[in-house]
């Protein structure tokens, strides 16, 4: 279905015919790799990261909590690929398990935060009226508080824990993201096709699901990829401020925050987690960029 020359991401996203998808996906991947080398490389990295997070035992032994206090501060060696930390835990193992934590934080942020934001945005944009006004006013108000300040206050209030950190970050991203989704909805909503569908007798629910939703999926996917990176970074910043996932949980942010004080004596304690965070965030963002390019070439590199 074409929606005419509307200057909007929604327009370029073709209707998905699920049947052909499987056949085309391999070909599509190859094309993707050719056209978006950075995006493809990032995708590979992310796949590797996800596999590592899903099957950590394959790459490591002993688990992230096994302490060997008498082997603390060992520099990287064949036995400890990334050295050991201040109480002898193997850094490489903790990095791998940390991937899981990072992904969890990202998934939760996207899963809860972005979903809520999307639902809010869709509802708000579609329903309009007073509901829309109220939601937007509240969202504006929340957006005036810098995200990290709000997250700090929330975690401080709820006490630092992995769950609370995830919740805080999810909450903080809602206002901005619901606005993005809403604007996508608004632009589709004006379209005469929707008016026609209403006239024909399509219920609002049906219109939302069948027509609106597929066309906001694109921006949501792009947002999701960027939010993953944002979540990982915010968790790291909160850890630095003492409000992150508490030890001994092997989150990269906490590892970096603790390892910071040993940068001089034991560089591996901060370099590796820092590198992990940087690469992950980089990969998520580059992948998101590539997705956006694929979904609408006109928006290449925007926002």
């Amino acid at each position, binding site marked *: 279905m074409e929606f005419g020359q509307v200057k909007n991401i929604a327009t370029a996203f073709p209707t998905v015919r699920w049947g052909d998808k499987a056949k085309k996906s391999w070909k599509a991947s190859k094309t993707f790799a050719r056209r978006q*080398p*950075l995006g493809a490389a990032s995708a590979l990295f992310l796949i590797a990261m996800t596999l590592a997070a899903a099957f950590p035992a394959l790459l490591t032994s002993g688990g992230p909590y096994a302490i060997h206090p008498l082997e603390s501060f060992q520099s990287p060696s064949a036995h400890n690929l990334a050295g050991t930390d201040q109480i002898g835990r193997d850094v490489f193992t903790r990095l791998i398990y940390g991937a899981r934590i990072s992904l969890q934080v990202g998934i939760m942020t996207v899963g809860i935060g972005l979903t809520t934001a999307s639902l809010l945005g869709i509802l708000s944009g579609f329903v309009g009226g007073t509901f829309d006004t109220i939601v937007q006013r509240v969202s504006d108000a929340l957006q005036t508080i810098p995200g990290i300040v709000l997250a700090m206050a929330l975690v401080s209030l709820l006490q630092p824990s992995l769950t609370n950190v995830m919740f805080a970050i999810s909450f903080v991203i809602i206002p901005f993201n619901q606005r993005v989704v809403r604007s996508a909805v608004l632009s589709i909503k004006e379209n005469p096709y929707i008016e026609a569908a209403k006239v024909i007798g399509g219920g609002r629910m049906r219109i939302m699901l069948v027509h609106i939703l597929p066309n906001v999926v694109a921006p949501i996917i792009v947002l999701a990829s960027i939010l993953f990176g944002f979540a990982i970074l915010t968790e790291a910043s909160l850890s630095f401020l003492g409000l992150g996932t508490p030890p001994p949980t092997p989150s990269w942010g906490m590892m970096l925050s603790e390892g910071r004080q040993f940068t001089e004596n034991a560089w591996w304690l901060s370099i590796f987690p*820092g590198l992990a965070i940087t690469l992950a965030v980089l990969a998520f963002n580059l992948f998101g960029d590539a997705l956006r390019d694929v979904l609408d070439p006109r928006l290449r590199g925007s*926002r």
Partner: protein
Amino acid sequence: MSQYVLKRVLLAVPTLLLASLVVFSLVRVVPGDIIMATLGDHSQNVTPERLAQLRHQIGLDRPFVVQYVSWIGGVLRGDLGNSLWTQRPASSELLKALPVTVQLGVMGLLIAWVIGIPVGVLSAVRSGKASDYVGRVVSILGIAVPDFWIATVVILVLSVQFNYLPPLGYAVLWQDPLKSIQQFLWPALILGFRLSAVIMRMTRSTMLEVIQQDYIRTARSKGLSERVVIYRHALKNALIPVVTVIGSQVGIIVGGAVILETIFSLPGVGRLTFQAITLRDYTQLQANVLVIAAMVVMMNLVTDVAYAWLDPRIHYR
């Protein structure tokens, strides 16, 4: 236009009220309060009766609504309350801290523009080629690398390799400009690097759009050199939307300030806010959030107006 500005200013009021209410509620639901935090060393010698007395003196035992209303009343009179920690007016603490963060933000933004715009232009002009990819990766690095990490490494390298550290003891910019610039340079560089990511991407995308416009084709066909086309015609128009981005960057600036001010020992609003949160200094926190929120609202309005002024195609109702 002035009608629009007025409307926006009026709208700001409920927005700020709401924001302040959110923070007000958040901090009061917490166990452990400022009395505990500050008695710290001696709290074990203090009896519950004395604790209650001290709480009463600060007014922490009044009902929530009463506390909020009385605070709002004060704000309308220009009194943001007294910091529970220092007993001094929260507004005076803020006034001392604001110039620091503003200076950090302005220097950071300048550096972000110096880095972001050229890289964005380059990326757009050579879109699809190697320098485009390099530019994009470098700019994303700006947001991908945790800033407290870079800051630590910078301090370590500076102190160990070069025996250098930015001078201690905050110097006001116009009283001792040399010392002040030295103090702010490195944190501003780190902040600027982070901010430049957004600027770069914005510049790149608007440049790409503009380059494809008809009038650029016309300029080229007139025989003008590529350089003139890009800089005199394209960039001028491409920069307009970039201006609007400043408003949204205030959030990053304040967020970055919290970390950078701690590491580089600058007595700014970020550090003040972090301290207020950990100490449960409600009044200071509320005052800080209110003022920051007001600045965000104002910045947004200013950039929107600037946008309209710069681009004659934009009209606000």
